[in-house]
């Protein structure tokens, strides 16, 4: 495997476009499901090292107001993990958003985090998958740092990869105190396969 992954301008533009279209579709689906307007940032695409990703995860350990949920996916030789970081998100608002009735204990909070992740992430990845003609299998979402400290969960020094392709999208929901960042992380060995898929669109 090459020491540095290089993503050409063409591929980056193409992936940006694919993600933009997917996010547009996702926003539309989410608006219908959640009955609120979803404000999405323009996806930001870059190649990151394990240390960069560890730093992003670090914010969960260090701040009581940040929670994180991860969810793995795989299909057609492309594998990755989505991590959603909820910044100062109000659980009461999440409950209102998902029409959750019942007491908001810790278990309910966890369920809200997982459901929101599944909904936001599913909506976005589905659009991407359709365009590059892949169907993904999804693992169940997991709340980060619940059973293990994050530095035990992911140690950048022992990572077997050097680079990953990360797409970052910020979500805000109108009228709700919900603000989160979605990191869509594709493993190093998936990038080649993704580029091959993008070739069909570029051709």
């Amino acid at each position, binding site marked *: 495997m090459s020491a540095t992954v290089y993503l050409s301008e063409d591929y980056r533009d193409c992936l940006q476009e694919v993600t933009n279209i997917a996010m547009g579709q996702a926003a539309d*689906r*989410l608006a*219908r*499901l959640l009955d609120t307007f979803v404000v999405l940032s323009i996806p930001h695409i870059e190649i990151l090292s394990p240390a960069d990703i560890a730093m992003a995860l670090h914010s969960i350990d260090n701040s009581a107001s940040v929670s994180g949920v991860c969810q793995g996916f795989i299909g057609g030789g492309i594998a990755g993990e989505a991590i959603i970081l909820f910044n100062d998100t109000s659980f009461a608002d999440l409950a209102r958003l*998902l*029409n*959750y*009735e*019942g007491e908001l204990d810790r*278990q309910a909070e*966890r*369920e809200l985090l*997982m*459901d929101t992740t*599944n*909904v936001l992430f*599913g*909506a976005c990845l*589905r659009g991407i998958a359709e365009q590059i003609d892949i169907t993904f299998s*999804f693992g*169940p*979402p997991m709340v980060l740092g619940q*059973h293990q400290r994050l530095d035990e969960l992911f140690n950048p020094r022992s990572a077997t990869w050097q680079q990953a392709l990360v797409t970052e999208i910020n979500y805000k929901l109108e009228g709700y105190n919900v603000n989160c960042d979605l990191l869509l992380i594709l493993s190093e060995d998936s990038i080649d396969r993704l580029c091959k898929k993008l070739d069909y669109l570029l051709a």
Partner: protein
Amino acid sequence: MTSGAKDFLNEFHWLMDVLHNIDVGLVVLDLEMRVKLWNGFMQNHSARPSADALEHSIFDLFPELPEAWFRRKLQSVTVLHNAAFTTWEQRPYLFRFKNYRVVTGNAEYMYQNCTILPLSDANGEVNHICLIVYDVTEVATNRLQLQKANAQLHHISRTDGLTSLLNRKTWEQSLRHEFKRFQRYHHACSLILFDIDHFKLINDNYGHTAGDEVIRHTARILLDGLRDSDVAGRYGGEEFAVILVDTDAAGAKVVAERLRTNIEASSVLFERHLINYTISLGIAELSPRITDPTMWIDTADRGLYNAKRAGRNQVVVYHT
């Protein structure tokens, strides 16, 4: 029959065999929540054959299934065409089934993870829902046992084995914590340090087992007389320490005096011997003149020393 149709029938047969025999629960529901597929796993675990389940509403079959919650989950499946998940940690089970191993399994019911998938027809419309039910009892019980073991270890590492009072290390953490709180908020806070008078004589006369019983007895009487906010620890062999939060020296003296008289009035029955004993107590109220936690203990220790010197079985407040 054409050979193509025969092949198709054959294939259909073994596919159905797989669906029915796979050790995972498979349920297909239409949008009215009527059961359309009910595989062998579901039949066996629910004790409901296909004939009883098919075409019935899942909510009629399983009244324990929380309907509002389930419908909300399904909404994201039908609107987003997106799989939804439930894990045993959110909800131990969707269907209340018996544990597979009724004898050696140590869970009463089956822990389940579930995946809810949209099924679309030839036109891409989602008009059925597939429920996949995984038995994760093994994983769940292992994790729960680990959590329990960790909680036990946590308890053991904090307490003294003989008395179940806080051990010295943990108690000293509380002491430092209260000291810091005082520096910030200046709420009154007092410390009682006490030990058993002539403990060595008890050991020499009745043996160490008797000594242990006296220590346990002291801890019991101590705990009986304290409020929830007070922090009692076993400081050394026959030495005990109590932090009294929001209590000045006069208040601590009332507590100490009550403890002293309670111990004096009680006796320990050990192998047909009635052992009577007393305690001596020193008190130090925290003041700005006390500059660190060690000095706080030393101050209370001086009170204790004076109580001993004055003839034991008494309380002395030491003022810095």
